[in-house]
């Protein structure tokens, strides 16, 4: 896929794999990952879920830095949708699409401004339900 910055991706410490289980609930599990020189993303296979071959999942790479006085900063994440393939006891992750935010690239106030259409949409839907 295009648009995935593998260099920035490599700065995250771990990954969270999520898929929808047979019971309809999301199932998330954290695991280690590495990026190979040919840009293959390889995830360590967790004990659960037992079947991850060919599964449509999302993988979240998230970072915060704890602050000395409490709270956190340096927020950034990459959320990547794709498919997992079992290979040699590991999982190869084939990325398809991406959503991300890094407050160093897009400061929080600008992120809020960019998200105003979603806020307007939500308020509009609420207003319509009140008027109905």
């Amino acid at each position, binding site marked *: 896929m295009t648009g995935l910055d593998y260099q920035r991706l490599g700065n995250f410490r771990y990954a969270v794999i999520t898929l929808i289980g047979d019971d309809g609930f999301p199932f998330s599990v954290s695991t280690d990952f590495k990026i190979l020189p040919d840009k293959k993303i390889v995830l360590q296979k967790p004990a659960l879920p037992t079947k991850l071959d060919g599964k449509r999942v999302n993988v979240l790479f998230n970072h915060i830095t704890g602050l000395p*006085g409490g709270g956190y900063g340096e927020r950034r994440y990459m959320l990547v949708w794709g498919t997992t393939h079992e290979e040699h006891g590991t999982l190869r992750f084939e990325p398809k699409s991406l959503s991300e935010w890094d407050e160093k690239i897009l400061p929080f106030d600008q992120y809020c401004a960019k998200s105003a259409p979603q806020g307007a949409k939500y308020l509009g839907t609420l207003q319509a339900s009140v008027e109905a």
Partner: protein
Amino acid sequence: MIKVPTWVRETFENYLVCEFTTVKSGKPVTMPLLPFYLPDSGKFVVTSSILFSKKAENVKKNPKVSLLFSNPEGSKAGKHAVLVQGIAHADDTDLDHGWEKYLSFWRKKEPYIDAYLAEREKFGWFWKRVVLQVEPKKIIAWKNGDTSRPPEEFGA
């Protein structure tokens, strides 16, 4: 209320963020969020600005959600991985004040929140917030965060 051991409860109370997943058209959507654990009921609350309200829209269509606590950064808790699967309810009846009852929880995790609140007018829509309350149905926990080993399950 699902009973959990002390290390799981401490994870809920101390981890600053969780990975919160909603379901949209059968696909997972996972975002890092600030969770609040309500010890009296064993329920969880996250709040969402209307600016970032797709998760609330998703919950209204499909209430099945999960919260994974996997990142001890910024907390004094040990490293574990705890997954909560539950049913969420979105409450947007009072966007301006409904979430304020959770401010004491918020302040513990982000002590600087009052400085942002002082500029509430500047970030008006950020402070219009939907309350998402989650009732756990199952809790799956990996002590020490080693997910290559089978987890413990509670409430199954």
